[in-house]
């Protein structure tokens, strides 16, 4: 009996269960690193821990798609209680039965979100931020401000463009916007998009997967334009770099970021409390001001300098294109093959 108890204690010690302050709840959150981590810790996690007395363990390993692969591989028991992903994984996870349904009865602030944006993420995702694909450029290198996605084809940008790899959803959204710009649509008539991307690839310096590496090319000035999420683009503007970004006239596609709970999470109640706290008006204001992104809440105060930069589904409806993400997910393998065949070889 004594040996069994010793063994159980050892197992608990090794697995880390029971660590932390005695009696305190622990919430394991899987999210992103870099500036995201710094800002979420300061503006959301620390106030949450103070208010609820729950310890948060922050795991910054993996992208949204990698996190979803982990949830799928473990059949909903990935070892974290809450994960930051996007609407694509939210919908897929709900369909596969791997993510918890979120309801206003346990998360009242879900009622405060704009219905159209909530619908994009489905019943298993709480939309906590909205960004959009913008065109980021060097103000000290381009003769004039670009206005259209077609600017990426301008001879002025020959060998001055860098592109994301297809595994970065930015590439998929850029492909779709190039399709719309050239007479196609978001999913069914994508040929014009591939034709345009083949041309952009030919005048690019290549492809990179990580946003941080993509950003480094623009920072040092070897690249003058690239697609980028507007929140991170705004952080670069705030740093005082000679860069700016636009939402091109043809419109753009939003990146709807979500908070999700895997079905096998150990601390679902704490995870629900965190989601409700993050969606709270004051938290959303703190997050928008800190990470320079948009919110799914329309009742929050937005810093003056961001007001004209953000797009929302209401007034900017014609400029925001919302693809059917489940259908898009089905198309990805075929598009990926075509991308590798028609787009990638044109670089260099």
């Amino acid at each position, binding site marked *: 009996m004594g040996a069994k108890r010793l063994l159980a204690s050892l197992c608990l010690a090794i697995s880390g269960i029971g660590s932390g302050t005695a009696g305190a709840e622990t919430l394991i959150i899987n999210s992103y690193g870099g500036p995201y981590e710094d800002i979420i810790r300061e503006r959301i996690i620390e106030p949450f821990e103070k208010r609820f007395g729950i310890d948060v363990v922050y795991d910054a390993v993996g992208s949204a798609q990698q996190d979803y692969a982990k949830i799928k591989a473990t059949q909903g028991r990935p070892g974290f209680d809450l994960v930051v992903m996007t609407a694509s994984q939210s919908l897929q996870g709900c369909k596969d039965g791997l993510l918890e349904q979120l309801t206003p009865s346990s998360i009242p602030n879900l009622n405060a979100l704009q219905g159209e944006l909530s619908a994009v993420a489905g019943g298993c995702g709480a939309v906590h931020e909205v960004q959009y694909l913008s065109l980021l450029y060097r103000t000290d290198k381009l003769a004039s401000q670009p206005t259209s996605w077609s600017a990426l084809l301008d001879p002025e940008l020959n060998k001055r463009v860098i592109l994301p790899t297809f595994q970065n959803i930015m590439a998929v959204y850029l492909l779709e916007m190039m399709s719309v710009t050239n007479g196609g649509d978001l999913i069914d008539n994508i040929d014009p998009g591939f034709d345009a991307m083949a041309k952009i690839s030919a005048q690019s310096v290549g492809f990179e997967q990580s946003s941080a590496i993509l950003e480094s090319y623009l920072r*040092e000035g070897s690249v003058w334009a690239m697609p980028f999420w507007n929140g991170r683009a705004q952080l670069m503007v705030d740093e005082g770099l000679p860069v700016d970004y636009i939402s091109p006239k043809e419109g753009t596609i939003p990146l709807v970021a979500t908070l999700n709970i895997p079905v096998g999470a150990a601390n679902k109640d704490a995870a629900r409390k965190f989601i409700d706290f993050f969606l709270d008006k004051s938290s959303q204001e703190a997050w928008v001001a800190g990470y320079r992104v948009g919110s799914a809440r329309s009742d929050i105060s937005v810093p003056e300098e961001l007001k004209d930069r953000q797009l929302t589904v209401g007034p900017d409806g014609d400029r925001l294109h919302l693809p059917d993400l489940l259908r898009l997910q089905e198309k990805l393998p075929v598009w*990926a093959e075509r991308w590798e065949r028609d787009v*990638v070889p044109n670089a260099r």
Partner: protein
Amino acid sequence: MNSLALDLHPPARRRRTLSWFPFAALSPSLLVLSVFFALPMGMMIGMSFTQTETFSPTLEHYQRFFTDGLSLAGFCRTALMSLLVAVSVTVLGYPVAYFLARSTTRWRAVVFALALAPELAGVVLRTYGWLIILEDRGFINDLLLQLGVISSPLPLSKNLFAVVVGLTHVVLPFGILSLMTSIQGIDPNLERAAQMLGASRLAVIRTIVLPLSVPGIVSSMLIAFTMAASAYATPALLGGAGFKVLATMIYEQVLFYIDWPFASVMAMALLLMMLAISFVGVRYESRRRSRASVSSGGER
């Protein structure tokens, strides 16, 4: 009768002792291999023949592998890259291994440490080092541009060349160790005798050392080939988006497209490639040995 019984008894007891001991000794490793190798391997094989939605048996993933054009290209690219790495590791490693096997100077310890030093740093660290040296804005291109030797950067990264350079660096210590063990097994008196009979140093190497070290060469080639074929970090970082090998393609299928049956097919293709190469190597070596034993028997 008694003496016969006494004679037979001890071997019978020895047999009984031997019968359970090997199993007991092997059981931990057999258990680990069964749970963490054979079982996942079986699941992977099963998955490659399973339809994603209905879980019914299918060959559609194999059909896609052979017809989509990209997967077979990735297979061929992997084979070419691994072959080039195997050759360069063996060619570059042989002189170092020979020196280490034969030298008795104090430099031997220094060269040995230098040969194995790359293993002290992780693969990712070493690969990033090569990225800094080879990329368009890297050390070599910067230097050549500043000296005015070139007007635009040479394509040293994001291609086969960069991956072969990076992987050669990663795998070289293993090739050297394999070759060194083989060369150490060759009696140095053979070389001395040949030189005393008038053979030049080069002739000794060509006609005595090289033929006798073929097992080490085969082993070095096999180790380098299999390590290169299954490498992920170096091709992913130095190869770029345009240079996809099976390992990076499997990663994409598992993590980005979540198409595990198709990833299983690619993993099967990679496994079969490595098994085939190992089979060819082992078969070549055993044939060579049997030929050698026949010819030496004939001389006797």
